């Protein structure tokens, strides 16, 4: 069976979902797994039964991993925090995310190593969300001692997905508010991963190039499309793109990963590096790009799929797109099974699955390859891809955002090709800015024009009667 791996991943996901709905003891599931494993060992020669047992094992593995994700280590910081506790504590650790600055406020994820409450010290682990009411020059990997009140995160949403759930999916169960700079004591040493430090340095360089050659708005949009940094996108632009169903262009996705792989491969080819060396260097570049963009679910999915394709290329074997998609899902869900309930994860995988499953079938049904006019074929292909992605995500979007945008398919016909051009121009601009700045000025003018055109088209599309409706 060619897609056995994909089937096993589906069973793994079902295991995660069921354990989330029904309470079952960890050891009960483990016992079942041991029995099924024993049976599989005995019936090794009977193919059909062995396949069924393997699926059950994948299911139990998903359930066990999900159960295990609920259990935190004994030294986890959340065990030391209570809902009503105003004791001031000292936390020693390092900044585990790129600090986010919004106006006067700064927030970051802090990896705790030691905690001191009332002269009692404990070694601890776990992440804390730190919110500061002022801005201070802080960077990823900076070691700090923080003094303040630790509180548990609380949910304040009427919907099923609360802020508390969102934080817990990222392994954050407590929050610390810092009101003045005296509560922060910087340390000399640096912690954190070297590859992340390098990726963040690279991202800052790339952002500087974009900000140097473009004005605020186009720079903000390009930073989102190329680097996944959405902080500079105005509220109205984001909102109008949600209404037209084109907000996905502001997220780094598989297309960007493909461009990075293509550009790096081209550059390596020009300097005459051999095939094997090129594949390895492209794989490393994809990993760095994944960290540069913040390693969000869509990027991790695209990176893993890209790496599977590269590995297949290296081994001279044909990659299967369903298996590579399944391996990306498995990679994310093994690390954190709770990501299955993240909207970003669901949207990313459902849209890709809908495109790879429906697109070839619809293309064949409508005989698009027989169209002799290339532009007409191109428009129809674009329409079909958008339509498939829309079909794949409509349920998730309407359930989570309470919006249905029938205009999405029409909007995507115009906006997706434009966004493709902007992304290509964006990467060209960044490369030119870093390697040959005299060309960057020319590229930036074209990019700014394309971004303005995109915003105008988007504004025009949502003015169509019945373009979108909330319910």
């Amino acid at each position, binding site marked *: 069976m060619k897609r056995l791996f994909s089937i096993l991943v589906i069973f793994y996901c079902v295991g995660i979902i069921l354990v989330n709905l029904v309470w079952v003891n960890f050891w009960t599931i483990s016992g079942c797994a041991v029995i099924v494993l024993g049976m599989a060992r005995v019936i090794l020669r009977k193919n059909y039964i062995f396949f069924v047992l393997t699926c059950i094992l994948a299911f139990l593995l998903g359930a066990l991993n999900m159960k295990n994700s609920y259990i935190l280590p004994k030294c986890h910081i959340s065990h030391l925090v209570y809902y009503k506790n105003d004791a001031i504590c000292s936390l020693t650790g390092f900044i585990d995310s790129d600090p986010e600055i919004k*106006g*006067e*406020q700064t927030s970051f994820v802090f990896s705790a190593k030691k905690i001191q409450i009332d002269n009692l010290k404990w070694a601890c682990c776990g992440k804390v969300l730190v919110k500061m009411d002022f801005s201070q020059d802080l960077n990823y990997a900076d070691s700090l001692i923080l003094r303040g009140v630790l509180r548990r995160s609380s949910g304040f949403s009427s919907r099923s997905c609360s802020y508390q759930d969102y934080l817990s999916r990222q392994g954050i169960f407590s929050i610390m508010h810092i009101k003045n700079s005296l509560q922060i004591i910087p340390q000399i040493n640096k912690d954190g991963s070297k590859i992340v430090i390098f990726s963040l340095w690279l991202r800052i360089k790339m952002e500087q190039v974009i900000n140097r050659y473009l*004005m605020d*708005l*186009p720079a903000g949009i390009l930073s989102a499309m190329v680097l996944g940094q959405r902080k500079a996108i*105005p*509220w*109205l*632009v984001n*909102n*109008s793109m949600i209404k037209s169903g084109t907000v996905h262009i502001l997220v780094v996705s598989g297309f960007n990963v493909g461009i990075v792989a*293509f550009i790096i491969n*081209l550059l390596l*080819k*020009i300097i*005459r590096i051999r095939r094997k060396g090129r594949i390895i260097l492209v794989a490393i570049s994809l990993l760095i790009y994944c960290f540069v963009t913040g390693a969000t679910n869509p990027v991790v999915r695209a990176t893993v799929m890209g790496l599977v394709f590269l590995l297949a290329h290296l081994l001279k074997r044909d990659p299967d797109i369903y298996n590579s998609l399944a391996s990306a899902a498995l990679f994310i869900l093994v690390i954190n099974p709770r990501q299955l309930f993240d909207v970003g994860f669901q949207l990313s995988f459902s849209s890709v699955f809908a495109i790879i499953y429906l697109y070839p079938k619809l293309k064949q049904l409508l005989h698009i390859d027989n169209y002799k006019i290339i532009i007409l074929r191109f428009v129809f292909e674009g329409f079909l891809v958008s339509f498939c992605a829309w079909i794949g995500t409509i349920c998730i979007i309407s359930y989570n955002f309470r919006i249905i945008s029938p205009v999405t398919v029409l909007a995507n016909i115009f906006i997706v090709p434009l966004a493709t051009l902007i992304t*290509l*121009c964006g990467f*060209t601009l960044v490369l030119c800015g870093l390697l040959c700045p005299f*060309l960057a*000025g*020319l*590229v*930036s*003018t*074209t990019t*700014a*024009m394309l*971004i*303005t*055109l995109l*915003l*105008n088209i988007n*504004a025009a599309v949502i003015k169509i009667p019945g373009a979108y409706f909330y319910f």
Partner: protein
Amino acid sequence: MVNLTPEEKRVVLFLLIVAFCGVVLNNLAKLNCHIKKLLCAETCLIRLNLNRISLEELLKTKSLPIKISQRIIDYRLEHGGFSSLDDLKEVKGIGNKRYDKLKEIFYIE
């Protein structure tokens, strides 16, 4: 000579087209001020006009509670409109934090 595939040749062509468009647009923008509008989006596409927004639209932004939204509309009616975004601070319930958030959403015309 470097042996490029057809796709790679297309990349080279793309780069040349982008650079060519850049030169032409730069030149046109210098000669004609209307062309400049093609290069920077109008403010109404990025922010909402505080002097024209209705209470319903204001609530849709989900940036303010109903009471404060109503106070903004009342202030506008009383004073004949906002002369600058700083006037927002005079509305009861809008402090520095809320003002920082609002100035990213609205503009005055």
